[in-house]
């Protein structure tokens, strides 16, 4: 009897190894890991061998060598005598600049267009659909070329600059604006701004509490706007206007002084924004449409007005549908910003994986660092959006 009992499980165990999904999965995964490691090992060995035979040194020592080339836009101090390491940071910051500007503008434009597509107004919804259909169906590179060569390159020379507003000049070299020069006491204005923000934070908590307790609502939006704009303005006036503007002036063939937005940045920013916003508009539209009509009906039947139905019922549910595809649009935008190379905007790829790589020949290190940057940026954005998404997730049975 005991031999019988021992026999049957061991017999079934023999067949079970192949039929047990968990064990099978472990086997296949181990095989896969071995294959991948072998493949990577082969590539590394092959590359090292090639480099050695061509006499190229490996390592990151080149980063401290002098770069010797100029960059047309830099957010940190940079000159031709700066190091290659510094070109990396200049490029990285320029990539971040255009990505952040692009994400902000594309989100705003995308939400406006997505909601406009759902408008009951025939003209508004048709304009929004036309926008989406046109801009998401033309290759991004062509759009960048369009804004750069067809629009911005067609602007007049510095001497014939357009001046739509006093001291703001637009010409083929860029957009020139007065630069603020902060005088004594401007710090107080900044402080007033932050005090206003903190005050708004506490007032809004208080007003929420008061609504919970008494049901009365407080005009929070107006109070917040008044405080955040009004308080700094008041302090500014009390301190005797401690802010002057240095206007750009035409000297020779170009403008000096003031702030400049170079046409490469403007073209890339506009193109990335308009292109990505077309996709975001579709995401927003389908997200709002994904909230069933029954939700709107139930909320309206309770007496909530249109605005509150949207704010309290539709948007909180739509956001959950919108976030995952929105995340991938943000990632696309960051990666697409590398098309900067095509018009010479000095982003990471153009400056570092372009000029620096060409001059130093350190392909492996440069490409590795560049890929690492995009990978890190993408993972950071994904992590943030995932965190946001799990916070919003619906509880199901």
């Amino acid at each position, binding site marked *: 009897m005991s031999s019988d009992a021992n026999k049957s499980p061991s017999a079934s165990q023999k067949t079970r190894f192949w039929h047990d999904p968990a064990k099978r999965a472990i086997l296949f995964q181990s095989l896969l890991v071995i294959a991948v490691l072998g493949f990577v090992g082969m590539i590394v060995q092959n590359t090292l061998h090639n480099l050695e035979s061509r006499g190229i040194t490996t390592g990151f020592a080149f980063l401290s060598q002098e770069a010797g080339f100029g960059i047309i836009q830099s957010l940190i101090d940079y000159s031709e005598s700066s190091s290659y390491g510094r070109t990396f940071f200049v490029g990285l910051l320029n990539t971040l600049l255009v990505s952040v500007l692009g994400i902000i503008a594309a989100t705003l434009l995308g939400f406006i267009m997505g909601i406009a597509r759902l408008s009951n107004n025939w003209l508004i919804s048709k304009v929004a659909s036309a926008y989406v259909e046109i801009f998401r169906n033309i290759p991004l590179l062509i759009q960048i070329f369009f804004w750069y060569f067809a629009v911005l390159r067609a602007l007049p020379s510095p001497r014939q600059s357009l001046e739509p507003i006093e001291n703001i000049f637009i010409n083929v070299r860029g957009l020139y604006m007065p630069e603020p020069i902060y005088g004594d006491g401007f710090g107080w204005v900044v402080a007033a701004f932050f005090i206003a923000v903190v005050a708004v934070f506490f007032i809004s908590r208080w007003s929420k509490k008061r609504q*919970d307790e008494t*049901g009365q609502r407080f005009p929070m939006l107006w109070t917040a706007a008044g405080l955040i704009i009004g308080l700094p303005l008041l302090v500014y006036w009390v301190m005797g206007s401690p802010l002057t503007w240095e206007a750009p002036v035409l000297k020779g063939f170009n403008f000096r002084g003031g702030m400049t937005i170079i046409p490469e940045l403007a073209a890339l920013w506009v193109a990335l924004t308009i292109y990505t916003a077309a996709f975001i508009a579709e995401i927003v539209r389908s997200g709002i449409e994904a909230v069933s009509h029954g*939700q709107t009906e139930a909320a309206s*039947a*309770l007496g909530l*007005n249109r605005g509150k139905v949207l704010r309290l019922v539709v948007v909180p549910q739509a956001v959950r549908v919108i976030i995952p595809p929105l995340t991938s649009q943000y990632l696309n935008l960051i990666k697409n910003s590398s098309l900067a190379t095509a018009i010479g905007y000095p982003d990471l790829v153009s400056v570092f994986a372009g000029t620096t790589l060409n001059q130093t020949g350190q392909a492996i290190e440069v490409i590795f660092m560049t890929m690492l940057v995009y990978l890190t940026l993408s993972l950071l954005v994904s992590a943030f959006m995932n965190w946001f998404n799990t916070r919003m997730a619906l*509880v199901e049975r």
Partner: protein
Amino acid sequence: MSMTHQVEDKLMVEMRGVNKWYGQFHVLKDVNLEVKKGERIVICGPSGSGKSTTIRCINRLEEHQKGDIIVDGTTLNNDLKNIETIRREVGMVFQHFNLFPHLTVLENCALAPIWVRKTPREEAEEIAMKYLRRVKIEEQALKYPGQLSGGQQQRVAIARSLCMNPQVMLFDEPTSALDPEMIKEVLDVMVELAEEGMTMLCVTHEMGFAKTVADRVIFMDKGQIIEENEPHEFFNNPQSERTKAFLSQILNH
């Protein structure tokens, strides 16, 4: 036989010559209906006959094109103020519950009192708990709708409407999306509500409910009210051929 209860003379809902079209399609043809305070009306009829459309016109989820609808003295027109006033007084329960999945049961119930009636949150939650207790589901208050069974969800939906303290309740086939074993728990709640004197208009095929609760049964077909009578007469002595055909279908399956 219907239960004895108080029906007042005051008119809660009045539909006079109401007509509605979907494009070319004439959905409602001269619908006339008067519902007194405390009255319980059951509307039945074949699919597509315009039952849902009729009651959805009462709180303006659908717009009628001709005729008058007056609810508790307020005339429905394009004035948003009137529409909102009427919606505050008229509760509605849907076939598919339509609870808000991102809010807990308690928040579902307290939402409208807080944002429409401007009730303090604590008080609104007390009201919500009171009605959740009445539909016997108070122990689920902190769960999300997705965690409840269909019957429980529908009871929450009824409680959610009651929190606005409505004068009239509209039910659009409240039990037809439910598994048979859950129908009773919802009907029990509705019967209880009727006993408390709520003015009710129910679209339903639950003839047992109609027989015990309704003051009047209305039969609709092809956008018209064909016949209306008190339940005993309606079921035992139907007048029109169409009513007879419908009743034989629905009672014999």
